[in-house]
């Protein structure tokens, strides 16, 4: 799957879940490329902005879309890496604020 196909597939499936791609298209494509690189490197699409360890089971919480996307979008209007924004942020074209890390620190190895 090339990047454009990945973009189209995710846009369709994720918008149904209330998660919209960031309006910053360059950022979105940079992150999608990183997700594909992580898939090649680790075998799974680990969040590009988090330290993956190479063990799918250990990192299942940060496989995109990560377990933290929903609470982060609810609280901050965007997911941690900024790939997805909430419907409100999308509609109002607000620039999402900095999203602090929610992943438990003991998971980072």
């Amino acid at each position, binding site marked *: 799957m090339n990047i454009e196909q990945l973009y189209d597939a995710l846009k369709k499936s994720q918008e149904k879940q209330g998660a919209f791609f960031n309006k910053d298209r360059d*950022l979105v494509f*940079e*992150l999608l490329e*990183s997700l594909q*690189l*992580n898939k090649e490197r680790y075998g799974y699409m680990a969040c*590009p*902005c*988090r*330290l*993956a360890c190479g063990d799918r089971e250990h990192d299942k919480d940060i496989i995109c879309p990560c377990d933290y996307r929903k609470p982060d979008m609810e609280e901050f209007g965007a997911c941690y*890496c*900024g790939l997805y924004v909430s419907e409100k942020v999308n509609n109002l074209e607000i620039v999402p604020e*900095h999203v*602090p*890390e929610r992943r438990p*620190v003991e998971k*980072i*190895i």
Partner: protein
Amino acid sequence: MCTCIIKVYGLSSCSHCKAARKLFDKYNIEYEYVQVDDLKGDERKAVIKEIKELNPRCSFPTIEINKETIIVGNKQNDIKKALGIKK
């Protein structure tokens, strides 16, 4: 010219890290960069321990300026302030 000693802990795939590094490059500010996802074994463990001491959440980028100021994330205004960049 900034004479700060800067150390950036980042990830090769992280957009926040790339954006923060671009800011340093824009102002020709030198910094030491540790690409944590490239590290393995004991070296990786030691660096993660080092980051956790600076930033208990161990998130990226973690930026250390002059051994006293720690900036977590791509907070461009905080970075500029710490470096004395006014524009």
